[in-house]
């Protein structure tokens, strides 16, 4: 089910006027039908919200089916007649059993320890004891963390908590002394940073353990040479940068496009062009944020892609459908596999589509006007392959050796890409037990081949 986009359409009153079979089946199982109101409450509310705001909305959707939960991504595009619904990445999962709500590692207090929280100025807003821990110091409310816990420097004279406050990252191994029932006791603090929806640092949440019970501090994360000191291994950092940048950028792009399109009235042509440049630069930055978020995700230890049953032919045609307009703008013709040609393979549907979009996007970007891009399917033994070839200037042997490196743009300085796309694409291919290779020569275009485990 995950390999398809399920489509539907509602009228202005929110009635489902048409839909693919999967959506219709779900609508019927929920007790409704065609020409009747959407029966899935979550979907109906999203549709109503999109219509009310007259804005496209893309959100995760979780819906309950008879014996399973459906997890999907839904996109609602409102128009004058109602709204179009697109549901992708449709997955069914068994109904989740009730679980203890997740607790972050730093907040998982041992029975012998305390858990604490502070605000961005290190003032305590919570202090609780584990079941077997000594009682907490009275009158802690609103006091400074460093007042309640006497901070001890590490061997280099540094205080982990203060360094982490400056960087807004997590820390552990901060040795402190605090009042206990039998006088001063040695404890060790560890904590994770907290952020709100705008990416603003709101404080730390952590634990305080008696020194003998505290685990040895984990060595600091190895710094990525490409990112300097950016803590890419810290998921909170990724979420924060993602949340903090995506919204403002989306607004910059939308506003710049409104100005550029002169939707609110005519303006001077050069101003409209400047606005177009701003929108273009915004889209580039948004692409970079997407790439960084992806990079952070795939470089996480244990990252694995799903093993969907996919058809490389279908995915290639889907990629062509998405980027066809862009190619036409340059007069480029794309020779896609015919609709009856299939190449069954195993890989994660959306990740393979992401790789193909990257390859095809690069091909369009670096192909001369009025040229040809062709996409071919092939099978060699147990490998299913899809090749994207262009008639661009090609890549010499030296460049081929580095083209899959992070931030490698082969000397290009235009705003076309982040230099992360091919690096991410190859990492994704390998995460799916596949490979991404390039074959090229100067003046002869480039051929990028994605190979994945074949399926009979």
């Amino acid at each position: 089910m995950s390999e398809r986009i399920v489509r539907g359409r509602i009228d202005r009153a929110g009635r489902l006027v048409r839909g693919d079979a999967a959506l219709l089946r779900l609508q019927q199982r929920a007790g409704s039908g065609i020409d009747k109101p959407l029966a899935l409450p979550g979907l109906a509310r999203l549709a109503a919200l999109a219509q009310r705001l007259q804005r496209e909305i893309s959100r995760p959707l979780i819906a309950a089916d008879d014996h399973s939960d459906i997890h999907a991504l839904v996109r609602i595009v409102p128009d004058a007649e109602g709204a179009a619904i697109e549901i992708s990445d449709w997955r069914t999962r068994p109904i989740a059993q009730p679980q203890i709500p997740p607790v972050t590692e730093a907040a998982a207090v041992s029975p012998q320890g305390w858990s604490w929280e502070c605000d961005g100025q290190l003032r305590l807003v919570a202090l609780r004891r584990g079941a077997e821990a000594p009682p907490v110091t009275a009158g802690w409310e609103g006091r400074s963390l460093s007042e309640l816990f006497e901070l001890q420097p590490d061997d280099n004279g540094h205080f982990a908590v203060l360094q982490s406050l400056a960087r807004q990252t997590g820390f552990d191994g901060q040795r402190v002394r605090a009042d206990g029932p039998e006088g001063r006791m040695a404890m060790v603090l560890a904590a994770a940073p907290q952020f709100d929806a705008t990416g603003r640092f709101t404080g730390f949440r952590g634990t305080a353990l008696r020194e003998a019970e505290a685990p040895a501090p984990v060595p600091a994360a190895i710094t990525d040479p490409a990112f300097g000191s950016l803590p890419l291994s810290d998921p909170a950092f990724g979420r924060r940068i993602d949340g903090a940048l995506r919204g403002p950028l989306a607004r910059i792009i939308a506003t710049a496009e409104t100005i550029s399109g002169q939707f609110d009235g005519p303006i001077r042509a050069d101003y409209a062009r400047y606005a177009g440049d701003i929108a273009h630069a915004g889209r580039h930055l948004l692409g970079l944020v997407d790439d960084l978020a992806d990079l952070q995700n795939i470089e996480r230890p244990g990252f694995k892609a799903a093993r969907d049953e996919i058809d490389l032919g279908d995915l290639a045609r889907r990629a062509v459908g998405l980027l066809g307009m862009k190619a036409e703008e340059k007069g480029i013709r794309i020779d896609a596999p015919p609709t009856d040609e299939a190449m069954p393979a195993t890989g994660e549907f959306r990740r393979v589509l992401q790789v193909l979009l990257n390859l095809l996007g690069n091909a369009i970007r670096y192909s001369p006007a009025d040229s040809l891009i062709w996409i071919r399917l092939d099978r060699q033994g147990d490998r299913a392959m899809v090749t994207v070839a262009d008639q661009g200037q090609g890549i010499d042997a030296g460049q081929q050796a580095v083209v899959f490196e992070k931030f490698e743009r082969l000397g290009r300085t235009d705003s076309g890409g982040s230099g992360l796309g091919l690096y991410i694409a190859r990492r994704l291919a390998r995460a799916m037990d596949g490979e991404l290779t390039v074959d090229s020569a100067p003046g002869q275009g480039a051929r990028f081949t994605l190979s994945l485990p074949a399926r009979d």
Partner: protein
Amino acid sequence: MVQASLFSQLASVNPALLACLRETSAHLAAPGATRLSEEQRALALGIARRLVGDAADRLDGAVDAAALWADWGTQGLPGATQMAGLCFARAEEHRWREQSVRHASDAAPHGVEPIAPVAVPTTAAALADDPLAAIDRAYLVLRIADRRRFDALGHPEVAIDDLDLDFFRSLLLDIAAWALVRSGKDPAVAARLGEAVRGALARHDPARGIDQAGAAYHAALAAIGVQADSAAVAIARHDWPALIALAAAAQKYRYDDMALALITAEPAQLAPLLAPLLRDHAALAPLEGSLAMLGNRAVASAASDDYAAALQARAATLGDGPEGAS
């Protein structure tokens, strides 16, 4: 007939079967009605367990809280109807906040300038003179009151100081009665329990609760007329406790009542609900979006129609045709 009779006999001696049949019956009577998900059940039950445990712990060690819950968990909770509202409201608020945290990376910031950190004066005189410091302090107190509504593992609970005094007294007396019966109605135990209940009630301090913290925060903001701006900032930051507290104070509701009112509101009801506080309807979009993403909300439109009323309306429609034609 034979089957119906057998069912009746089986159900009369098997409470589990009786409960299943009642639930099936309710389900068949309204298959499309919103029902509690397993997550909602588990959260509400967990909150009730922690509330009973916390209340029992207030009785100076006179009650075995584990045995109490084991008994009440099997036999049913006294005062369950009143406790249901509290636990359900807290569970729904927790679900909303957890969802908001999970989707924080998807949520777009809404152009809100962060409030600059405020230097906190240390003297009472300085606090009184500086409205920004008073706001900062009141917000800190609100956060402290809110974090009292979680246990050491971060699980949601109802803070004892947030309880209505009558409800708290009733809960303590139920617990004491259970402990007394368990002791074989020992007069010494009765005296000790009575003392413990009086002590627990004397220590009950609503001033530490979220309702008073919310009211104080609202008052501090109102002193310089920035409560609407702060509510908009709270929405943009998905700082739902601050928003609920401000809205509750503005409407003079209890915090948990306002939380439930917001969570179960239809989109069109949000503006009037927040009207005394916030008149900028555009600022409501993130709130509306966040609530729309919360599954299984008990909003009015999710409830099944009144079948009898619907049938009557349909009959009236059918009846109109021939009469009108004749």
